[in-house]
């Protein structure tokens, strides 16, 4: 996105050429990938022509002027249906844009369409009974999942159907598809970017953030969307730093903790080796790396599940009474679980959350960032239900959420980025976790890593 923005601003390419090229790729590839739910071809071309006219007239333009993008289909878009990947909202057309959509438009970005997702964002696989299962572009025969819930975002960015996207992340829904599709995805600190106008899954766990091909592009998008929003009372009034300026390429002296138990040590052997190699590369670049464990981690899965199930059912209760048949089966079953979590269970889980967040703070008091796998396994085959990790058998869903969910629970910023490939050619994702509201250091570490490796520049066969 940064490169496209520069090329457009310097008139090397026109917004119309860029948007047309992406629409052509969508036409050529999306019947196989199923990344888009809605394509706004005419509106995108009209916006591109207006952007071109602004440029030729010498009017001031934003940093993303003429650059196309596409959000997960749970961001409200004025006049463009916002389905949440559901049948229930199939014909829902918002009257206003989500705050972050407005902010990207002000920066000059052009909406290409809306991206597929796990129904109502309630699943890490990225499957969808209503709009088709998004396929992983790295899987030559299209039989592997893209990961979810922001599955269309992961596949579209990886395959070059859109240079950037906004996903949402309640248990890993930005970082899981980023990991499985070989792109860079940032879950900012809770409160850094507005959730106003974004369909909720679980209010206290939901985060919105960019999904792009590099840390540099994530910095650009985050800079455009971050900051206080009176429409979202949980947003912070802290100033938004210049994230792009923080990308110095320098990690000398930075203290990096490699998360061992529960994270790196239980990952599939090729994932573990790739993450350990990334730690070694950062060490060679001057970072000071040590190993660390989180002791409260064993309770995070239970407490997170209780919180998400409760909040999700609260949001969906009316539809679960009147239209249960319109949910896809796995989502309906997960929503039903919320009916059996008591108020006392919910509060107890929030107490566990306070303990876990405190522990992550304490670990980060002595370190700048933490490293872990983004997912402990590469993209599973569609329909695969069981896998085996270093500590035994696990259902695929739990395995996918394992390394990401703790930082939704704690609220810390975390970024997934490619750090290698399995022997069968599937991307492996690294996760970098930082201090609250210190996305700048997280992005700085990922960017520095991307300057000394080329994993993020590789493209799938399908693209």
């Amino acid at each position, binding site marked *: 996105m940064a490169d496209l923005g520069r090329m457009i601003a310097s008139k090397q390419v026109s917004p119309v050429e860029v948007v047309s090229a992406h629409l052509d790729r969508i036409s050529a590839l999306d019947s196989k990938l199923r990344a888009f739910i809605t394509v706004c071809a005419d509106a995108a071309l009209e916006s591109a022509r207006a952007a071109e006219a602004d440029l030729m007239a010498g009017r001031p333009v934003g940093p993303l002027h003429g650059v196309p993008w596409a959000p997960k289909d749970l961001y409200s878009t004025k006049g463009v249906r916002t389905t949440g990947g559901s049948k229930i909202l199939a014909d829902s057309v918002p009257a206003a844009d989500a705050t972050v959509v407005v902010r990207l438009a002000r920066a000059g970005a052009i909406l290409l369409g809306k991206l597929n997702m796990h129904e109502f964002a309630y699943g890490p696989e990225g499957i969808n009974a209503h709009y088709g299962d998004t396929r992983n572009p790295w899987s030559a025969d299209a039989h592997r999942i893209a990961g979810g819930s922001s599955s269309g975002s992961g596949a579209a960015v990886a395959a070059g159907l859109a240079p950037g996207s906004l996903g949402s992340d309640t248990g890993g829904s930005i970082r899981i598809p980023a990991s499985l599709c070989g792109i860079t995805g940032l879950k900012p600190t809770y409160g850094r970017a507005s959730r106003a106008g974004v369909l909720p899954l679980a209010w206290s766990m939901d985060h919105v953030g960019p999904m792009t091909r590099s840390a540099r592009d994530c910095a650009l998008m985050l800079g455009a969307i971050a900051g206080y929003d009176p429409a979202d009372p949980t947003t912070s009034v802290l100033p938004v730093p210049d994230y792009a300026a923080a990308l110095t390429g320098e990690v000398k002296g930075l203290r990096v903790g490699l998360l061992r138990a529960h994270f790196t040590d239980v990952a599939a052997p090729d994932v573990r080796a790739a993450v350990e190699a990334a730690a070694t590369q950062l060490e060679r670049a001057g970072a000071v790396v040590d190993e660390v464990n989180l002791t409260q981690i064993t309770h995070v899965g239970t407490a997170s599940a209780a919180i998400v199930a409760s909040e999700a059912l609260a949001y969906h*209760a009316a539809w679960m009474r009147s239209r249960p048949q319109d949910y896809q089966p796995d989502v309906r079953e997960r929503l039903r679980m919320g009916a059996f979590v008591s108020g006392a269970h919910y509060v*107890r889980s929030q107490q566990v959350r*306070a303990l876990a967040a405190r522990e992550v703070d304490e670990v980060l008091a002595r370190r700048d960032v933490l490293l872990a796998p983004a997912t402990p396994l590469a993209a599973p085959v569609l329909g695969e239900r069981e896998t085996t990790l270093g500590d035994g058998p696990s259902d695929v869903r739990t395995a996918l959420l394992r390394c990401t969910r703790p930082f939704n629970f704690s609220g810390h910023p975390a970024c997934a980025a490619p750090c290698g490939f399995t022997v069968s050619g599937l991307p492996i994702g690294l996760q970098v976790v930082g201090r609250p509201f210190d996305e700048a250091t997280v992005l700085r570490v990922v960017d520095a890593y991307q300057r000394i490796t080329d994993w993020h520049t590789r493209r799938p066969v399908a693209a």
Partner: protein
Amino acid sequence: MLARMEISVELLKRTAALGGFDWSDAELEPIRPAVARLLEALERLEQLPLGDVEPTTQYRVI
């Protein structure tokens, strides 16, 4: 505690009804084992020393 009771479909049905959900045996039986596991796990949280820990519903908002 609920988790120490046998988690039957009938119990789930009555509990769901308290929340206004009219779900059938056929709809509840598939999730019964998962509910039992979740309740057992939640019961284990009771053993943690959480007495003086303030619950948080949101991360630090500044």
